[in-house]
């Protein structure tokens, strides 16, 4: 695919829009479906692979309005069913077509607190855009209405054009709520509970708040200033933020209630325990978990070579194991840190890759090489304990497994070598065990995920949980949705 510049895309959109806008409410479905799906303007791949600025540049106003005109305003709105927090999609899209961006963003904010984030990182192709009528009619989910991009457009418009209103806070109730962790689930709980007039303190283990949105997802996909703004808004609402505070260590969970007088607690500590493959050579120098690699790069700013005190050793040839968003991020960060070659090794095919389609495409455009139906068998090192290569096996797809995906089966005797000097293991995360270890009365399942009821209640009265610590490694929007539910339950609990 040839790369079109933002100017080109905008000019093309303007041409169509000039023709259609005067009759915007009278357009027939056929005419709407004939409008080309608007491509996301992006930095030129050749340039962006060496910088950390955002890759996707966002629609122009013309592109956004034209894309919004593609929506058929279906009565049954199947798209809403696909959105985990049930945003009124036809309504916000219509507002964009009408040029009323404030109205549009207000509609979104009834259901989602972080549209600038979700518009960027939601796996839309399997959520809201999957059932879209336009995509179905054109027999291509890529041609569905680009709901996520439109959501991002109005969220960005609000941030850039509007002085942000701090949400109103009801009079103080004298009740105190502790929110543990500062990922998306926690941020939503903090906002929703604070709005009811309860005092809220966020406790975060790291020195910066934001959870995976800060230390995991890289700048080029989610600029840190967007997350920071959400946190600034919370601070303006009077939410107290305590960083460098590890609940379970600095204070035990239940002590927050018994010693410090918190009336309710929300646990949103995420899925921060990297899985390893348990293969030979995994502790060699140059083998990282994706979490370590990304934390060094994002939070500790290893990309600012010379300034940052926490380096990542420079690598010539990097192999990333895994096929999810984490793997894509690690691979693309490695490229930006100067690796000559980056190879992604995944044991199924591209169809089964859990990563967002857009990220896989961007990774390919940037020159990352994919090795599908292959998997690591062992990692080899030299006499100094440094990685020199990785031995892989080829696979084929067999019968579907419990997840419904076809199970990869190894091909005996198909071993081969990839020479490399760094290996990043990105095969997923388990739940962080810290709180569980020091709070035995908290019930967890066999994966260590906290067990909650449909209102986010745990086995300890007054203690709620949500996000990845409940779901296992999931998504920002699901974490947010759980936060919403728990916040509602907390507010009811405190009122009662």
């Amino acid at each position, binding site marked *: 695919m040839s790369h079109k510049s933002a100017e080109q895309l905008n000019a093309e959109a303007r041409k169509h829009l000039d023709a259609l806008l005067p009759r915007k409410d009278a357009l027939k479905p056929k005419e709407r479906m004939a409008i080309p799906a608007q491509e996301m303007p992006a930095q030129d791949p050749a340039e962006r692979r060496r910088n950390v600025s955002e890759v996707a540049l966002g629609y122009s106003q013309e592109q956004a309005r034209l894309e919004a005109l593609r929506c058929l305003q279906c009565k049954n709105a199947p798209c809403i069913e696909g959105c985990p927090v049930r945003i009124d999609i036809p309504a916000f899209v219509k507002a964009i077509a009408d040029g009323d961006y404030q109205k549009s963003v207000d509609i979104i904010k009834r259901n989602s607190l972080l549209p600038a984030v979700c518009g960027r990182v939601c796996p839309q192709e399997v959520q809201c855009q999957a059932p879209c009528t336009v995509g179905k009619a054109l027999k291509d989910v890529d041609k569905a209405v680009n709901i996520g991009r439109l959501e991002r457009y109005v969220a960005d418009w609000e941030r850039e054009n509007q002085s942000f209103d701090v949400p109103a806070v009801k009079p103080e109730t004298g009740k105190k709520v502790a929110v543990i962790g500062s990922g998306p689930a926690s941020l939503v709980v903090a906002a929703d509970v604070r709005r009811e007039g309860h005092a809220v303190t966020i406790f975060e*283990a*790291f*020195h*910066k708040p934001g959870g995976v949105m800060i230390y995991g997802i890289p700048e080029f996909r989610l600029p840190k200033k967007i997350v920071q703004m959400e946190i600034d808004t919370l601070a303006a609402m009077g939410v107290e933020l305590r*960083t*460098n*505070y*590890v609940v379970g*260590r*600095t*204070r035990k969970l239940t002590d927050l209630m018994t010693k410090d007088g918190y009336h309710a607690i929300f646990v949103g500590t995420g899925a*921060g*325990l*990297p899985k*390893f493959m*348990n293969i030979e050579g*995994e*502790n*060699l*120098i*140059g083998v*990282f*978990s994706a*979490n*370590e690699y990304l*934390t*060094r790069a994002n939070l*500790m*700013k290893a990309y*600012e070579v010379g*300034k*940052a*005190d*926490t*380096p990542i*050793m420079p690598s010539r040839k990097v192999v990333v194991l895994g096929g999810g968003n984490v793997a894509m991020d690690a691979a693309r960060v490695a490229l930006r840190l100067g690796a000559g070659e980056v190879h992604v090794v995944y044991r199924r095919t591209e169809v089964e890759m859990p990563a967002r389609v857009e990220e896989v495409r961007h990774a390919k455009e940037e020159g990352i090489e994919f090795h599908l139906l292959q998997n690591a068998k062992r990692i080899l090192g030299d*006499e*100094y*304990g440094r990685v020199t290569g990785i031995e892989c096996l080829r696979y084929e797809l067999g019968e579907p497994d419990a997840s419904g995906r076809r199970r990869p089966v190894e091909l005996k005797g198909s071993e081969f070598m990839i020479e490399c000097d760094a290996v990043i293991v990105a095969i997923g995360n388990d739940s*962080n*065990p*810290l709180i569980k*270890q020091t709070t035995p009365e908290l019930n967890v399942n066999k994966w260590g995920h906290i067990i909650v009821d449909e209102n986010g209640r745990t086995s300890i009265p007054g203690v709620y949980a949500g996000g990845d610590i409940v779901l296992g490694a999931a998504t920002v929007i699901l974490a947010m949705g759980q936060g919403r539910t728990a916040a509602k339950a907390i507010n009811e609990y405190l009122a009662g």
Partner: protein
Amino acid sequence: MMTVRAPLIAEERKPGQFVILQLDDNFGERIPLTIADADPVEGSITLVFQTVGKTTHRLALLSEGDKIENLVGPLGQPTHIEKVGTVVCVGGGIGVAPLHPIAQGMKRAGNRVVIIIGARTKDLVILEDRMRAIADELIICTDDGSYGRKALVTAPLKELCERDPKPDMVVAIGPPIMMKFCAETTRPFGVPTVVSLNSIMIDGTGMCGGCRVTVGGQTKFTCVDGPEFDGHLVDFDNLMKRLGAYKKQEDMAHEKCHLEMEMEMEMEKRNLKLET
């Protein structure tokens, strides 16, 4: 040595635990340091550190009243302290600092505590008075014989193991190479030996896996499963290699023979821990 105001940490900390600190929010490194002592009434903790690199140097330059930008803790599993009989505490170089609260705890639990302090030379012996106050028996060794016995800590450790009754437990903290040889010394006698590992860390909460070590063939995270482990099960060679990961040794001549390389690693580790 440095005393830091940290009321919450002072209240919660137990022997064997550590903190992670960072001097600059944006670009600073997060470094782990053991809590050598704490005063919950005053709300302060004591850190003892060796200036080895940029962060510890900058830390040493702080003066009274200065602030440490980020300090998080207490981290790690506390030492398992119980009355077992006789406990030998072996501290090498700066390792004496983290050993102090453990020796203190062991003594309070009613154990007979024998302390061995090892250092390269007399000037590098630290916390001697505090340790003397705890110990039923104190042995000091220096590599160069400038103070106490001229020996490595493993020599008196071996003699203690040969006594009857032999010690019930050994706690060894110091450079990895020292801990490795302490574990080798006690192994034939079957004396349980606890070591405290100083792997490279970032978050200290089990999130990054950077601190992983091989213990009994399994991967463990030093920051949540440790820092203390059974010295007879730790893969010290892997630990030492990983500790060296960020040293500028890429250009080290590859033609160097294996033995020479290994000796250099040992020397380097000793200097790292024992030099001021």
